[in-house]
């Protein structure tokens, strides 16, 4: 008997089937919202936001609500695979192997590398949120060649801000929109980050705040801005410098804040002949131990008219002026140097550079300055600063900012972001209500204490790496270089090419390894990073490099291991493929040792627990690392007798401590034998259970008096030290003037005694390690013929695909099936390109054929597209005719990972010279119509890889998908 198709008034509870619900943490993007998964008969009925989760408070986004289609996608990998002997990389010819075979093969190969030269093993990972574990594995293995994707994502944002005020946007801090009155979003449109930003933005607007979006494109968040200010890409730094100029000129800066909480009043040695030139003058010069700013600098007191030690009670220093010390040394307060610097950056100058009208720039400066000054917030919260002064209230200046890759992904991004950080600081908005607020474990010292290794001797056979694979150089002596000053890492991070490459340079790994510069490697392990497609610059060439052989017929990169949950474009280039699970099939932690999900009010971390069993032979990458660590007898993973220490990943999470008895582990909540402690405490065997019973999240709310002014809040800093978040309870003064950068500059000028750059790098370091922000055009622009390639080309991620790599997702791909190049109609018509027509976009590196979409929401000098919607044919479980490959395209083919050779013939990474941040958005292009009769398909196209051996996926690529979870089946 056939069932009724539809009974609209039936009740969900009447549906047949066994209903279960489980809480876990989403991973459809990197925001990590709490989710509740309802299963019917073991199949996913629906996924909703967990109302009791502090991050998303019950909401969910387009991706999160499409997790079902990720779980059951035909694009999943479900068995370990080995490339068939004799087949080319990229051809995709694989045979199924057992995990036993995969592990023993890896064990043999990696043990041999570790025993001979550990740096020949390179582990690079994508947007994995697992860096505490992957970093530990790399360090224990002894290889320095490790990083995650930060170098090609947004390291400039992290570094520019952390080197200025000890914190950064997103995971580590953000705009306090709850109390802000004016919010400026710049270089962010649709992503970074997702639900928390949406929740806050909506509340902010409804409370009557003004929202300004500064962006070449008006989409996503910018759509609901009260004011959209289009700007030319890569000129954000020019805008910030002009705003700083105007704000200071009008006296709209927060003088009191700058005096007390920044180095603005500290006196800088102006003697050009001195080895101390550009350094702060110290009143005592014992060796400064520890990674914090010693409080031993001088101010010039206004009342006594003489130098005095900083923070002497009752003193009020000059911020402007030039003074002479008794020994004849001429000094200036750091703030004076900032004023000197911004003198040339007038609103008129910036108008020309940014394309923003001069009156708009001035009005912006006034709106920021006047709102900060006149809309002051006072909270009746008493607190004590680190100098022992008691305050009976917390004050705040309600102007806030958010920025991300639009600023970061330029080769001038670090200094632009220094400019933004200084703008935020002179407005007096750091860790105060209505402004920027930190999230634990930040603020940290400037820079934080973790340091990279310092030389080749730190890499030894059968020995863990001496130093952290990634760290925060404070001084040229912290660089990871050999005696000649040349790089030790394969990506050249922490070398003179990119000294503050705090997230590594993943975008140069394949090119460097292929070229053997600085050396050849043996095994490259890639986790969850699509280096044969959207995660590489210069995609077409990188694909050739991956498959390139030397004269002996050996691959230039001898062995490539790819671990992924899906059949990405990278899979066919692997020699060994390890099938990862989805987020719904595994344990995982959002660790305080990595990038936790803390709130402004205190530390938060969280976990994932499996809600469905692994599909096929899928194994979580975490388990792969624990297994390999045990087999290779890496010290952290084995007992003294060499026996395996951890049963599995959950066991590792509970019992691993950063040092024996340290009490610090991956999870901060419910530590101590019975779960009575947090942050620090003995392992608790029931820790997972306790997380599971508490929405999979641990949230410690700090006392109110510890929630603000944390850089200088004695109570907070002592709490942080007691709970092992920070080594020192010392004030973290804002670096308006960066002495750290000046130290590198002094080395470049040959004025310092420590490590020296090779001569060929001296000019570059001297120019870019300016202790004050400056504007220079992006490096690629400087080497491009702008008459030939006049337009900027940028990309962004759509909200429905943000971070999610979800073209394999049947629902999400219907929202974005292919992409267009968005062009202002004025620009397009000038090039004779019709709306919807096929066109060519060309840079000095390559060309792409795509479809044009007219848009009035992009400034005429810029063209843009959605990133990573275009896919290579025959990947991601899509059919050969899928729109993603036939109409979709990647802009990456136009973007080079390297700059043209400089005057000395050196080829350097197309990155920020300070941090190594990939300059994705620096490319310049021209556009023209496609000729009549050209194929109506995007260019370039690639040979599709062979079909993988049959995978154990739920759906096949059939004509109809009729998803219905459990219960009645028609």
């Amino acid at each position, binding site marked *: 008997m056939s069932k009724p198709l539809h009974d609209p008034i039936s009740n969900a509870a009447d549906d047949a089937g066994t209903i279960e619900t489980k809480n876990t943490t989403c991973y459809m993007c990197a925001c990590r919202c709490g989710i509740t998964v309802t299963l019917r008969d073991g199949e996913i009925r629906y996924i909703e936001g967990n109302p009791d989760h502090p991050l*998303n408070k019950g909401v969910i986004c387009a*991706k999160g609500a499409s997790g079902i289609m990720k779980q059951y996608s035909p694009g999943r990998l479900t068995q370990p695979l080995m490339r068939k002997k004799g087949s080319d990389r990229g051809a995709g010819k694989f045979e199924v192997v057992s995990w036993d075979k995969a592990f023993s093969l890896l064990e043999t190969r990696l043990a041999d590398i570790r025993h001979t030269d550990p740096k020949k093993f390179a582990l690079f990972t994508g947007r994995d949120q697992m860096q505490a574990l992957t970093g530990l594995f790399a360090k224990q293995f002894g290889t320095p060649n490790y990083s995650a994707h930060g170098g090609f994502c947004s390291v400039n944002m992290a570094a520019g801000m952390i080197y200025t005020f000890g914190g950064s946007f997103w995971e580590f801090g953000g705009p306090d929109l709850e109390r802000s009155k004016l919010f400026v979003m710049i270089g962010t449109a649709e992503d970074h980050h997702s639900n928390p930003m949406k929740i806050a933005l909506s509340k902010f607007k409804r409370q009557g705040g003004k929202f300004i979006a500064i962006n070449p494109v008006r989409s996503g968040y910018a759509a609901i801005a009260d004011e959209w200010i289009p700007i030319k890409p890569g000129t954000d730094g020019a805008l910030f410098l002009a705003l700083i100029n105007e704000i200071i000129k009008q006296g709209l800066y927060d003088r009191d804040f700058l005096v007390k909480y920044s180095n603005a009043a500290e006196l800088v040695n102006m003697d050009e002949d001195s080895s101390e030139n550009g350094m702060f003058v110290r009143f005592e010069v014992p060796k400064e131990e520890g990674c914090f700013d010693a409080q031993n600098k001088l101010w010039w007191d206004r009342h006594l008219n003489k130098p005095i030690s900083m923070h002497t009670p009752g003193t009020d220093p000059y911020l402007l002026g030039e003074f002479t010390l008794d020994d004849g040394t001429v000094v200036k307060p750091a703030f004076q140097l900032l004023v000197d610097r911004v003198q040339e950056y007038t609103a008129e100058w910036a108008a020309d550079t940014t394309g923003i009208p001069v009156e708009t720039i001035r009005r912006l400066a*006034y709106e920021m300055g006047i709102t900060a000054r006149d809309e002051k917030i006072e909270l009746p919260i008493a607190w004590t600063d680190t100098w022992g002064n008691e305050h009976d209230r917390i004050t705040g200046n309600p102007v806030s900012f958010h920025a991300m890759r639009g600023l970061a992904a330029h080769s001038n991004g670090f200094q632009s972001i220094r400019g933004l950080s200084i703008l935020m600081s002179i407005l007096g908005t750091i860790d105060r209500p209505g402004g920027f607020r930190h999230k634990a474990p930040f603020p940290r010292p400037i820079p934080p204490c973790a340091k990279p290794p310092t030389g080749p001797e730190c890499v030894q056979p059968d020995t863990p790496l001496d130093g952290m694979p990634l760290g925060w150089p404070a001084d040229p002596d912290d660089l990871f270089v050999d005696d000649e000053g040349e790089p030790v890492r394969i990506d050249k991070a922490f070398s003179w090419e990119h000294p503050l490459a705090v997230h590594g340079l993943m975008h140069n790994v394949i090119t460097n390894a292929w070229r053997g510069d600085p050396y050849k490697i043996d095994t490259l392990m890639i986790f969850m990073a699509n280096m044969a497609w959207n995660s590489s610059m210069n995609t077409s060439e990188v694909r050739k490099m991956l498959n390139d052989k030397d004269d002996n017929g050996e691959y230039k990169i001898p062995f490539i291991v790819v671990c992924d949950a899906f059949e990405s474009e990278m899979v066919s280039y692997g020699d060994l493929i390890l099938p990862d699970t989805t987020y719904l099939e595994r344990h995982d932690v959002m660790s305080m040792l990595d990038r936790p999900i803390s709130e402004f009010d205190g530390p938060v971390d969280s976990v994932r627990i499996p809600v469905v069993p692994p599909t096929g032979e899928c194994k979580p990458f975490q388990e792969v690392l624990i297994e390999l660590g045990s087999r290779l007898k890496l010290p952290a993973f084995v007992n003294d007798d060499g026996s395996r220490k951890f049963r599995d990943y959950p066991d590792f999470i509970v019992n691993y401590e950063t040092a024996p008895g340290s009490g610090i582990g991956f999870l901060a909540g419910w530590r101590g034998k019975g779960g009575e402690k947090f942050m620090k405490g003995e392992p608790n065997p029931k820790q997972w259970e306790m997380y599971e019973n508490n929405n999979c999240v641990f949230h410690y709310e700090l006392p109110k008096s510890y929630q603000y002014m944390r850089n200088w809040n004695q109570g907070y800093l002592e709490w942080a030290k007691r709970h092992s978040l920070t080594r020192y309870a010392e004030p973290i003064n804002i670096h308006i003037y960066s002495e750290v950068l000046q130290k590198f500059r002094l080395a470049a000028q040959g004025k310092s005694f420590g490590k020296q750059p090779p001569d060929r790098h001296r000019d570059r370091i001297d120019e870019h390690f300016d202790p004050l922000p400056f504007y220079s055009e992006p490096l690629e622009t400087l080497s491009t013929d702008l008459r030939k390639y006049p337009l900027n080309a940028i990309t962004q991620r759509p909200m429905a695909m943000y971070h999610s790599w979800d073209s394999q997702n049947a629902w999400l791909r219907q929202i974005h099936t292919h992409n267009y190049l968005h062009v202002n109609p004025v620009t397009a018509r000038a090039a004779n390109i019709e709306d919807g027509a096929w066109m060519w976009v060309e840079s000095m590196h390559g060309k792409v054929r795509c479809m044009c979409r007219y848009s009035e929401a992009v400034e005429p000098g810029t063209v843009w597209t959605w990133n990573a919607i275009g896919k290579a044919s025959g990947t991601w479980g899509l059919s050969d005719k899928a729109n993603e490959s036939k109409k979709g395209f990647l802009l990456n083919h136009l973007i080079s990972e390297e700059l043209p050779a400089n005057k000395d013939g050196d080829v350097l990474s197309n990155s920020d010279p300070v941090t190594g941040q990939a300059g994705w958005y620096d490319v310049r292009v021209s556009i023209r119509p496609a000729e009549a009769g050209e194929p109506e398909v995007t260019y370039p196209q690639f040979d599709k890889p062979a079909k993988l051996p049959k995978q154990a996926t739920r759906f096949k690529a059939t004509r109809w998908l009729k998803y219905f979870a459990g219960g009645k089946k028609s």
Partner: protein
Amino acid sequence: MKQLALVIDLNVCVGCHACVTSCKEWNTSGTAGFMSDFNPYGEDPTGTFFNRVQTFEVGEFPNTQTVHFPKSCLHCEEPPCVPVCPTGASYKREEDGIVLVDYDKCIGCKYCTWACPYGARELDENLKVMKKCTLCVDRIYDESLPEDRRKPACVLACPTNARLFGDVNDSESVVSNSIRENGGYQLMPEWGTKPANHYLPRRKTSITIHADELTRIDNPLKKEQLPLPDDDEQTLDDIMSW
């Protein structure tokens, strides 16, 4: 008479599509499901959605507005889709005003699609029956769910809380209040369909700067006046003797 409806606040909708897929995931396994997808992994995939977001631009650069416009069945008080239905499959519930389709009676003739001026109906090409938003009728009365979760999936999902749900005929409800206070409007009222769903327009906040705010007595630059010269520096007072 009770009339449940959605009020969609275009002032905060960022076009994220959370409502689109949360609708699909709830309903595909609900009483309105399944919601089929044609060519889900192939060329020109197309599936049944009860709710879609259209994005369009208004105005010329640089005075451009980008509008994200979520659209689903508006649950009209005078639904033109109901009287045209030859089998009585399309009907409006008396108790709450929700417009529904009884698939068992639907013959897929598409008359209702032609009658609906809003393009809110979609033929499920697999089942050949007409489908559309049910306001999650199988969820909002489900007593097995906690009370605060008995709302349409799209409303619960929306990260910007741009979707309000309630009785537009109850003048004290949150939805009625928001329509009244924020200039809520109906789509194409001239058609006489009396759509129950309403939209709230964009509202702008601006800052006014007064000239005197730039010339304040407490300007911090005044503190930077340099110190008086030393007493031993020569002055006119030292050298003028008459």
